[in-house]
């Protein structure tokens, strides 16, 4: 197996044993990026080769000195471009932040730096994380490594594609309505959305503050546990961050799923879920049963309204969160205006893409006097009810299982004409954000060479259990050796088109 295809834990063993240097690893990943990036376009910003190698050498030196190193030391990691990085551009794949360099690091970026992870670049995304295909990037689309004619999912499409294509060993993304899990599903990797408040949002450029959460995209479940352990924890700079202790997510990861009672919400496996996805998920449930889990169908009757509530609440919060992009203090400013108002309007009209503008308008409308109760108020009621239904379900079940997305990766342009078609893709993931729960997506099969994702939803703050379940399934299903066809493209192949 190539170095760039390895897992965090596999590489760490070799690094610790001295069989491999961080510099060699970084070289391998950089070389891989050079070979495949022009096909995939995972990144919007790549750090200079020399900077990356210097950091890797520093980790090697640290190891030589005998310093105690964490599990991410020397591991090349990619960051979604909505995570603030001091000194590197942070654009959210938006023209309005083109060239913007943040003066501070997000808390998760600080955590990675403390762990001596090596950041290799910033990954592409739907503009301000609004989208499910990464087609809404102001810069370029990212391609799915399993089929470059298809989208990688979104909005963390760049992070998912980078991990799937061997351009990073692991990546961070953000998930507001499925933006980690759905691209993980489309790209055949593992994506974890932690409980709301488990990971600090400080330095994550806000899309919808009550729903956003940062999480890992990795090659296997064990890696997800490792990265989560590195970024989770209380942060005084985020008033919504949870003060609870961070458990050792690896401690019980081998303990299996025997005797665990799992629910399958029928609302997430009904109409709208493609037949191939449905059958792959059913097969996964059979395997979990074989492994000793006790599986039942269950019902959360309000779930069909989750999408409606989500597409009121998320745009409402976004309309307010994105008000700061006014050209006054940072980012793009349209010149030559005669008044503040004109400058403001022209800056935003030019700086924001159509999907962002659409959601700002939707959200503004939903909060307007006379419509608030009808839209935002009603959506909050639905949200409350969904939370309650999850609570009830978790009185009986340890975890809930569903598909991550109703389909496999779709073709470019297929859903761009009709936003509702795009939004429907989030049907299985948005309820989890509305309820603030942890959920993981992992591969559970393939159809026509495209990965299918299984979603496991856990109780609040119980990431450990869904990691254990996912690990048990992953070990038994043994899909991990399958790599995107891209990896078979010989190195140095010229790609003139």
């Amino acid at each position, binding site marked *: 197996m190539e170095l760039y295809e390895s897992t965090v834990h596999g590489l760490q063993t070799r690094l610790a044993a001295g069989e491999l240097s961080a510099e060699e690893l970084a070289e391998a990943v950089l070389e891989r990026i050079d070979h495949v990036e022009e096909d995939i376009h995972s990144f919007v910003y790549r750090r200079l080769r020399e900077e990356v190698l210097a950091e890797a050498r520093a980790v090697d030196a640290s190891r030589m000195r005998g310093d105690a190193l964490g599990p991410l030391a020397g591991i090349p990691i990619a960051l979604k471009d*909505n*995570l*603030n990085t001091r000194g590197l551009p*942070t654009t*959210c794949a938006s023209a309005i*932040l083109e060239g*913007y360099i*943040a*003066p*501070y690091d*997000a808390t998760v970026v600080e955590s990675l730096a403390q762990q001596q992870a090596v950041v290799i670049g910033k990954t592409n995304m739907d503009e301000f994380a609004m989208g499910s295909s990464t087609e809404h990037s102001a810069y370029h689309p990212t391609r799915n490594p399993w089929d470059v004619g298809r989208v990688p999912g979104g909005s963390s499409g760049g992070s998912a594609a980078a991990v799937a294509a061997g351009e990073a060993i692991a990546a961070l993304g953000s998930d507001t309505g499925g933006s980690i899990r759905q691209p993980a599903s489309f790209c055949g990797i593992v994506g974890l959305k932690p409980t709301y408040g488990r990971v600090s*949002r*400080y*330095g*994550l*450029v*806000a899309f*919808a*503050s*009550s729903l956003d959460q940062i999480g890992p995209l990795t090659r296997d479940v064990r890696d997800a546990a490792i990265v989560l352990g590195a970024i989770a924890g209380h942060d*005084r*700079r*985020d*008033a*919504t961050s949870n003060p609870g202790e961070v458990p050792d997510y690896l401690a019980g990861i081998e303990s299996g799923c025997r005797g665990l009672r799992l629910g399958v919400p029928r609302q997430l496996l009904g109409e709208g879920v493609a037949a191939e996805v449905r059958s792959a998920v059913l097969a996964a449930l059979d395997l979990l049963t074989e492994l000793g889990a006790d599986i039942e169908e269950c019902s959360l009757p309000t779930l069909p309204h989750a999408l409606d509530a989500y597409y009121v609440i998320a745009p*409402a*919060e976004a*309309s*307010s969160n*994105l*008000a*700061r992009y*006014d050209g*006054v*203090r*940072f980012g793009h400013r349209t010149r030559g205006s*005669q008044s*503040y108002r004109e400058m*403001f309007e022209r800056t935003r009209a030019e700086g924001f893409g159509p999907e962002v503008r659409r959601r700002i308008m939707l959200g*503004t409308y939903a*909060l*307007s*006097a006379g419509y*608030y109760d009808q839209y*935002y108020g009603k959506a909050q009621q639905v949200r409350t009810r969904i939370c309650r239904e999850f609570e009830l379900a978790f009185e009986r079940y340890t975890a809930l299982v569903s598909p991550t997305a109703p389909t496999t990766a779709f073709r470019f342009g297929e859903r761009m004409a009709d936003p509702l078609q795009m939004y429907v893709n989030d049907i299985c993931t948005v309820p989890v954000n509305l309820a603030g729960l942890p959920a993981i997506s992992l591969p559970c099969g393939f159809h026509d060479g495209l990965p299918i994702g299984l979603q496991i939803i856990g109780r609040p703050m119980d990431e450990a259990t869904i990691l254990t379940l996912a690990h048990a399934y992953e070990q038994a299903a043994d899909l991990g050796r399958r790599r995107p066809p891209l990896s078979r493209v010989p190195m140095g192949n010229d790609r003139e088109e």
Partner: protein
Amino acid sequence: MATVYETVIGLEVHVELATETKMFCGCPTAFGAPPNTQVCPVCLGLPGSLPVPNARAIAYALKAALALECEIDPECRWDRKNYHYPDLPKGYQITQYARPLARSGHLRFSITETNGDTVDREVRIRRLHMEEDTGKSTHEGLPGTSTGVDLNRAGVPLIEIVSEPDIRTPEEARVYLQALRTLLLYTGVSDVKMEEGSLRCDANVSVRPVGEDTLGVLVEIKNMNSFRSVQRALEFEVNRQVDLLQSGGRIVRETRHWDDRREITFSSRSKEEAHDYRYFPEPDLGPCDLTPAFVEQTRQSLPELPTAKCQRYISLGLSGYDASVLAMDPPLASFFDAMLRAGGAPRESAALLTVELLGRLNATGIAIHDPACRVTPSALAELQKLVADGTINGKIAKEVLDEMVQTGATARTVVENRGLRQVSDEGAILEAVRSVLTANPVEVADYRDGKEKLFGFLVGQVMKATRGKANPALVNAVLRRELQGRSE
């Protein structure tokens, strides 16, 4: 007969809390720093930054709310008020809308009427909530039409105190505001300086025919930058509204600005468009969660407030006027209370303080709490006691105080050094009386013929002979006895 109109006024007051740091970040709040030097990612509204509430600001706001006898909402929430302005970095202001910190309070104060009577008034407080301040836009020293933005003030903690429309005259509005200022000074939560903008006042004014229950059309007045301008602006506005109605016109619901130089209010058209602030719960912050113990502890920490202080002074024998003058001036009241603690008699101490000491300080432009004021409360109380126990008389006391103000010496030191101790030795006084009687035979004869007014002249002569130090009561008694004795 012309309709008689009644004025209805409600005030919205913004107060900057005197915390070291801002409402949602650790930046300093000091006034007057160079533009944009007290800023960070949070108060600049940089992408990805998040607010963290300042616990001290919440405690201060709570203190103010309790001083105003409000009902506290221990689970009060934060909301976003959305609007666009260059000095509003996030495009929204974090404030409290649906669940303010406090509601249903009262402010009590008294007004001195033209005939000198004081009337007690009570204005209800509708709500008190916390919010963050905005930055400032400036055009000073900038080329052409460009605008500069200073965000040092952005994020400074504020409380907004909204009264019910219980105020009936412009003067009452001013006195309400002054009483509110005093109350807040006592709590120590703000320096409440109108000239620095740490106390800001907007007014809602309407007029209606006397006897009418419904309110007239509301006009909002802004830009009143002193207590005087609040009263002047409201007087102007009330007259304008009454004149307009009497000449058959209609009041328009609008915002008007007070022009302090021209002494008029004018319609500020830019604010006429109806705002839709699209309030919604601030998702970055949870509820405040004030525990009952914390609320109670804060209540206990409140100092004695003006109304209670005034009542106490009256119960000590002060006049209502003196009590109110002292209670409404925190440094003065604290000086007075210290005199009482040092054993000063209440009424005499009040007179010595407000008439004698303040008179001397005012003449030199020194404030009572100024370090330049060299007289301490205990020194002044000692002076009062020296008069009370007969060590010196009242006239000498004024001389002593003159020197205390200049040198900072204690009363006793001045008295001893200059030998001003009152002469109560009857032998010495008798001697002085006899020599005065001998030296003034004509006056003595006239007195005995019935010109009793000359008694005062003779007393004066004795006092003069003793350089003012003689005990006046003793002088009177000895003189009377001597005059009677000699006539027999």
